[in-house]
C-alpha cells in the first residue's frame, strides 16, 4: 500500500508498504532514517521513540498505515539550522553516550520531557525515561545530561 505522511517537516510518500509493517520499519528501511533504533520490537526498550503528532511513541508499535496523514518527528529532526538541540549537546558533553544504541530514543524522550517540564525533579526525569533501557551507562550520566540540558534551555529562555 501507499502511505503519505510528514516526516521531520516534509511530506513524503512511500509505496509498497506491507499492511502489517511498523512505522519503525518504514522509517529505517524505506526512508533512509536509521536514527530510530530497532531493538525489542515490543515497546519494552524505547530505542525507537519518535514523536507522532507531537506525542512520543514507540515507532515499532505504530502500524505504518496509522501514520498516514500525520506528523512524525524523529531524532534526525531535532537539530535546528544552528546545530544540535541542547538535549543532544548535553548528552555529548555529559558522556551520556556509550555504545549509543539507546541514545536516539532517550534524546527524543528527554526532549519531550523538557518541552513540557522546564525544571524537572530527578523523580520526574526517572519517570519520563522509565521506558528507555540503557545497558551501558547505569543511567547516572543520562540523568546528568538531562539536568544539564534543562539548565541550558532555561538559560536560553531567560530574557
Amino acid at each position: 500500500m501507499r502511505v503519505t505522511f510528514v516526516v521531520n517537516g516534509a511530506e513524503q510518500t512511500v509505496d509498497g508498504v506491507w499492511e502489517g509493517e511498523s512505522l519503525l520499519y518504514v522509517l529505517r528501511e524505506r526512508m533512509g532514517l536509521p536514527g530510530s533504533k530497532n531493538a525489542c520490537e515490543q515497546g519494552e526498550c524505547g530505542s525507537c521513540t519518535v514523536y507522532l503528532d507531537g506525542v512520543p511513541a514507540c515507532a515499532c508499535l505504530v502500524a505504518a498505515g496509522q501514520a498516514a496523514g500525520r506528523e512524525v518527528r524523529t531524532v534526525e529532526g531535532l537539530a535546528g539550522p544552528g546545530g544540535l538541540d541542547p538535549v543532544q549537546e548535553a548528552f555529548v558533553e555529559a558522556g551520556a553516550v556509550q555504545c549509543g544504541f539507546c541514545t536516539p530514543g532517550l534524546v527524543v524522550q528527554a526532549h519531550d520531557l523538557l518541552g513540557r517540564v522546564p525544571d524537572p525533579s530527578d523523580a520526574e526525569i526517572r519517570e519520563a525515561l522509565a521506558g528507555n533501557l540503557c545497558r551501558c551507562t547505569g543511567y547516572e550520566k543520562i540523568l546528568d545530561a538531562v539536568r544539564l540540558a534543562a539548565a541550558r534551555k532555561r538559560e536560553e529562555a531567560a530574557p
Partner: protein
Amino acid sequence: MAFLRPATWEDALAARAEHPGALPIQGGTDVMVEINFDARRPAALLDLNPVRELAEWDLADGRLRVGAGVTYTRLIEELGDRLPGLAQASRTVGSPQIRNRGTVGGNLGAASPAGDAHPPLLAGDTVIEVESAARGVRMIPAGAFYTGVKRNALEPDELIRAFWTLPATGPQYFAKIGTRNAMVIAVCSFAIALHPAERRAGTGLGSAAPTPRRAAAAEGFLNAELDWEGRSPLPAPVARRFGELVAEAAAPIDDVRGTAGYRAHALAVLARRALTWAWNDYTGTTGRREAS
C-alpha cells in the same frame, strides 16, 4: 493483509461487519507486538485511530462515558480526579510511550487477565458499551465482559465504543505486584472502590484467575462489617479476614512471573493494604498506615 481506515464510527461498524477477520487496532501496544513477532496474521487491520468520537469522553446524567480510544496518559491527566482507581492503574501501565498510545478499549479488546485497567473497572461497576451495525448497542457489565483467558463477550461484528462509570463517590485504590515500577505485567493486582452512599465496597482482582474477577464474598463481608455511619477505625481482624477472602476468590496459576501460592499470599496483602488506605481516607484518619 488489508488495512482498513474508517473515518467515522458508522464506517467502522460497517467495516467490522464486512470483514469479520479484521483485527481492530487502536494504540497498537498489544496488536503490533503480535504482528512483529509473527504470532498473528489477521486478514486485515481495522485502524480505529481516525474515529474521533472514540477519543472523547463526556458526562451524561452524572455518569462518565469514556471513549474506547482515550489513552492512559489522557485518563490520568483529564480524569484522574474523578476516576482515581483507574488513574492509579493507568500510571502502572508500561512506560510514558506506552501510556501515550495504549487505551482502555485495547485492554478490553485484548482481555488479558493481567490487563491493568480491569480491576478498577470491576470495582467501579463499569459497564462496557459495544455496538454492531446489525443489532445496535449492547451494554455489558464489566463482570460479564471477560469470558476466558484473552476472551471477551464481544461478537465478531461488534466494536467497543466506550465504558460507562460513575465518578468516584468514595476512596479508590489500586495495587500491583511487579519486579520494578515500570514496564511490568502484573504478577497480581487488586482494586477497591468504596461506595459510601450505598454502604458497599467494590473489588477487582487481576492476574489471579483465567479472567479478571470480583471477590464477591469479600465484598459481602465488608459491607456487613464496616461501620459506614460511625466511621470508626478499621479493626485489624476485619482487614485480615478481608485479605483472606480476596485470596480465596482467586484461582491463580504458576507461571514465569510467579507461583500460585505467591499470588494468593500477595493478593491477601494487597487487599488488606488497599482496604486500609481506602477506609482511612473515608474516616479521615491521617496517614496511610496499614493495619497490622
